[in-house]
């Protein structure tokens, strides 16, 4: 699998796929996409990178342990649900606000952070499984 062409090409492909997965994640609320799909795309990106350049390269590039990423995602999703506690509405009620970034109005909402949490869980869990499987037993 580790041909020169694949090894040279894989980092670019991975970056593009991760970028695309973020795009899919963020547009999910209105267009086809969302956390689950985005997470799966990113996970396959890392799987490809792992097959091409080795597991340790992927681990270095993610920096955190993938399971920690998944744990953070679960926490983020839970917290964005718990935020409703402070507004006296039921758990996981969507809360919306609008902030202005350089004069452009941007909608922020708890479902968005929830979806980011879903994304991180999927990426983290699947990547850690894939990496563990890709790892040579001597690694």
């Amino acid at each position, binding site marked *: 699998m580790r041909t020169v062409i694949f090894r040279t090409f894989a980092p670019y492909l991975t970056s593009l796929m991760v970028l695309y997965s973020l795009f*899919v994640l963020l547009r*999910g*609320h*209105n*267009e*086809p*996409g*969302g*956390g*689950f*799909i985005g997470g*799966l*795309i990113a*996970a*396959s990106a890392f*799987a490809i990178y792992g*097959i091409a350049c080795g597991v340790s390269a992927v681990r270095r590039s993610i920096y955190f342990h993938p*399971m920690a990423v*998944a*744990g953070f*995602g*679960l926490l983020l*999703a*839970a917290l964005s*649900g718990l935020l409703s506690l402070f507004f006296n509405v039921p*758990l*996981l009620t*969507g809360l*919306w606000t609008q902030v202005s970034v350089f004069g452009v109005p941007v*909608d922020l*909402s708890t*479902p*968005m952070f*929830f*979806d980011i*949490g*879903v994304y991180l*869980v*999927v990426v*983290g*869990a*699947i990547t*850690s*499984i*894939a990496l*563990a*499987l*890709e790892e040579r*037993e*001597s690694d």
Partner: protein
Amino acid sequence: MASNAQSITLLVLFLPFVAAFFAPFLTRVLKHNAAWLLALVPAFNFIHFAGFLDSVSQGEKVTGGYRWVPDFNVNFSWMLDGLSLTFALLVTGIGALIVLYAGGYLKGHEQQGRFFSFILMFMGAMQGLVVSDNFLTLFIFWELTSITSFLLIGFDHSREASRRAAVQALVVTGLGGLSLLAGLLVIWNITGVSELSLLLASGDALRESPFYLAAFLLILGGAFTKSAQFPFHFWLPNAMEAPTPVSAYLHSATMVKAGVYLLMRMNPVMGETVVWETVLPLFGGTTLMVGTLLAIRQTDLKLMLAYTTVASLGLLVMLTGFGNEKAIEAAVLYLIAHSMFKGALFMVAGLIDHESGTRDVTKLGGLRKAMPVTFFAAFLAALSMGGLPPFFGFLAKEEIYAALAGGDAWTLLVLAVAIAGNALMFVIGFAVALKPFLGPEIETPKHAHEGPLLLWLGPVTLAVTALLAALFSGWFHHAFSSPMASAVAGQGVDVHISVVPHLGMPLYLSLATIALGILIYRQLDGARDAMARVLTAIGWGPDKGFDQAIRGLVRFAHGVTRITQGGRMDVYMTVTFSAVALVLLVPMILFGEGPAMPAFPVMPFYEWVVILIAVLGIAAVLIARNRLTAIVSLGIQGFAVAVIFMLLGAPDLSFTQFMVETLSVVILALVMTRLRLSAADHRGTGEKLVDMTIAILGGLGFGLLLLKITQLPFDASLTDFFNANSRVIAHGRNIVNVIIVDFRGLDTLGEIAVVMITGLAILALIRIRKPRRPAEPDQGAI
């Protein structure tokens, strides 16, 4: 003002937990002196609760709380009457002394901060238990005391005996807690009331209910395990593995009295029935005798005290269930007296251990010169335990005999048990308090000298309080005994007894008890040997029984696991898919609910092509000679399905299917290389036939089910709802995503938790494989 007091009480209930959080940090900075600061928390709570004395002694019931889950009538509510207030004051008052004592006892221990944390948590749980009004709050605090007790008994977790004792205590009291929960739910169902303070009016309804016996037995299950009644008494002496402050606090003064508290609390509503007045004295009396006889056997100071605690709890249960007003007064007085003298004696035992290096009563003697203050505290406490005037224990004993004097054979039997038990407890009290201090000096492992202020402050304070309470009994009864007895009896009760002895039956019985006690005390060594012989002859006890039961349970679980979880993937798969096929097909055939024959579909040419690709994929799986080919062919079929989704207008589903298929192929291929499976599988023809049948039946079942569903009239209400609302309420145009992250957010939260846990489990499975295993023949793992 009222709401102000309400919020302060709420603060008081949570304060120990807050303090528990900060205790480790404080201890890191201040070392053992953190005890002085931490003791302020129970002291503050003590003062807060003492502020209610005035109104409660006038017969008022102070209730308060917050609604918690109003739909289910669950509140976070509390009630302060004579019973709970006295308990709360004991818990917080002794708690403050214990924190100080622990400061001295564990001085320099590297986990002292953790210890403070646990003991404060326990205190919070215990005070919550006694002031809870709502059933569920009561249950939660009840279980919290079991858990904190587990942590404290197992504090010294590097020793196997501690761990065993901790688990044993948790199992016994935890099971009791479940029984209590069931009992409370039964009572809730019978009376429709979920607050203890409202229960009083429903006593008759409860007693006449056909489920009274069930409720009674379940409540007893909770009370008897917690208060170490025979035959559940065995965990308490084992719990002496805990550091001494824990034994003094949890396992004599407070937690083990929770069962008695519960019985006292239920007495006005469940008492006065024949079962109540038979079962309680019977088990209480048995516990009293068993406890005292086993106490005689021991030479370890703490174990001697532990068995007398068991005995005292038996006495309390016996008195609570005896069913006359005097007996209740006696129970109340004895409970207060016991908390004080037993707490003090335990701390004395710990002090002796700490300063001399041993707790074995036969290896101690002549410490009075070296430890005069300890001797003073021990002697006062023993006098109270022995029931001598002018101590509080004397009042309690007089009242016991006043309650039991004269009457029928049953009363006489109870009386005889009480006298024998009291005499034996007298013996143990003095054996603990006198033997180590009197007589010739014996060389101890450490050179004994008086302990520091932190260590003797607690026992001296408790012993002196017992003296003062008896001397000023008029005020004490007005403030504590009478309101508490009234709460237990369910009607106004006035306690009058004072230290001035007046001639009469109770006094003669007291004298007889003391005489008997002195007699046995002189023969203590002989009695100990005799008991040891008897116990060796019996050979079996509930403690061993517990081990056997646990071992049996483990063996049973092991057997069940071996049968149901054989660990062979092919068996799991066969069972799962056979079950799926049966569940789908059998009802369909039995009830004749199969789908009608569908019309031949009219589809555009390209859809036919996609379906053809899917079929080809399947065919390739079937004829593939090589696993990798099969995996990839399965992927082709999956992609074809994704395309079908796309054509039918479900882009989200289609994307997900694409990604899942890709990842499945990658991961399956990786698993294959990882497990070093041989390239082709070697199933025999018979096996192949069976697998094929199951596969065909399963597929057929699913196909028929889907056909049937599409033939039913389509209920569009959900579709309409989401179409109408996803833009308006959830501000999203992608309905699928809006459902996932917003409308059904809780489901998704659960799902991603599952994804995460699955990931962890798979990771663990991959990791536990031994490295460099030689390639094995295929076990059909895929």
